[in-house]
């Protein structure tokens, strides 16, 4: 399936994935990330039960330095 992550297309062999598994696959620490799935903010507690299907848009945001 295809996921649109941070505006770019990525193809995965899986038919579906949950958000927590996606973060593991792309080696991203779930504790430091906030996510939007199809425009909706997902709280960290719900990463494991948030299903991602073909075409889902995922935004992964973290805290960086800024003024």
């Amino acid at each position: 399936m295809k996921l649109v992550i941070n505006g770019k297309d990525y193809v995965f062999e899986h038919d579906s994935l949950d958000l927590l598994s996606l973060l593991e696959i792309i080696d991203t620490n779930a504790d430091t990330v906030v996510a939007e799935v199809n425009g909706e903010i997902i709280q960290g507690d719900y990463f494991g039960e948030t299903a991602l299907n073909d075409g889902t848009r995922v935004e992964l945001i973290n805290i960086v330095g800024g003024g």
Partner: protein
Amino acid sequence: MNDSLIIAGRKFKSRLLLGTGKFPSVESLRCSIEAGRAEIVTVALRRVDLNNPGSGIISAIDRNRQLLLPNTSGARNAEEAVRLARLARAAGCGNWLKLEVTPEPRYLLPDPVETLKAAEILINEGFTVLPYINADPILAKRLEETGCAAVMPLGSPIGSHRGIRTIDAIKIIIEQSNVPVVVDAGLGVPSDASIAIETGADAVLVNTAIAIAKNPPEMARAFAMAVEAGRIAYLCNRDFQTRRTEHACASSPVKGLPF
């Protein structure tokens, strides 16, 4: 000296707010927060770099000692600012927010209409909003009336090092404001911070001038000292500006000269 900065009911000893962008390393930032005695530090929200996840910036911040103030930098309108604010809260940054709406990249000047619109929405959602604004006394008042916890007028464009070019308007904002006035952006050297605080600003926010210094922690210390000096001078001499004259006024006695 018992002289706290109070924003939204919360007390701070330090009047130097520190931005965390552009530091050469996380360690340099950590040492600069310490040397500058900053108690409010701003951060930004950006997409995770999938090739290099985890910026590590958060590890420099001791949240028992420093309040995290996420900004909405990069937002070009109210809608984008509100989205970033909600993401910041979901990321565990709390309810405090530096609201920043800059529609064009060359001068990064804040959009007053979109800022006011976003402030109304975010205050209704329970955010403690500190808006970055041009030095516009009417806008500052409107934002105060909307429920903003402070106003943050700019000295000059972000990262420009041009110092305080808006001093006359900032004086009016200070005179009229019932919420703290934090001079933000453009402060290039510690004396710029002193001028803001001597004039009666409640605090300053500095980032680039410290972050790109040869020795950021030492520059943070210099800014902290300048802020402290400015504050003491302000408290000792609130009306110093009214004493200015065009002509000289001898400080040595005019009587008793031997000629």
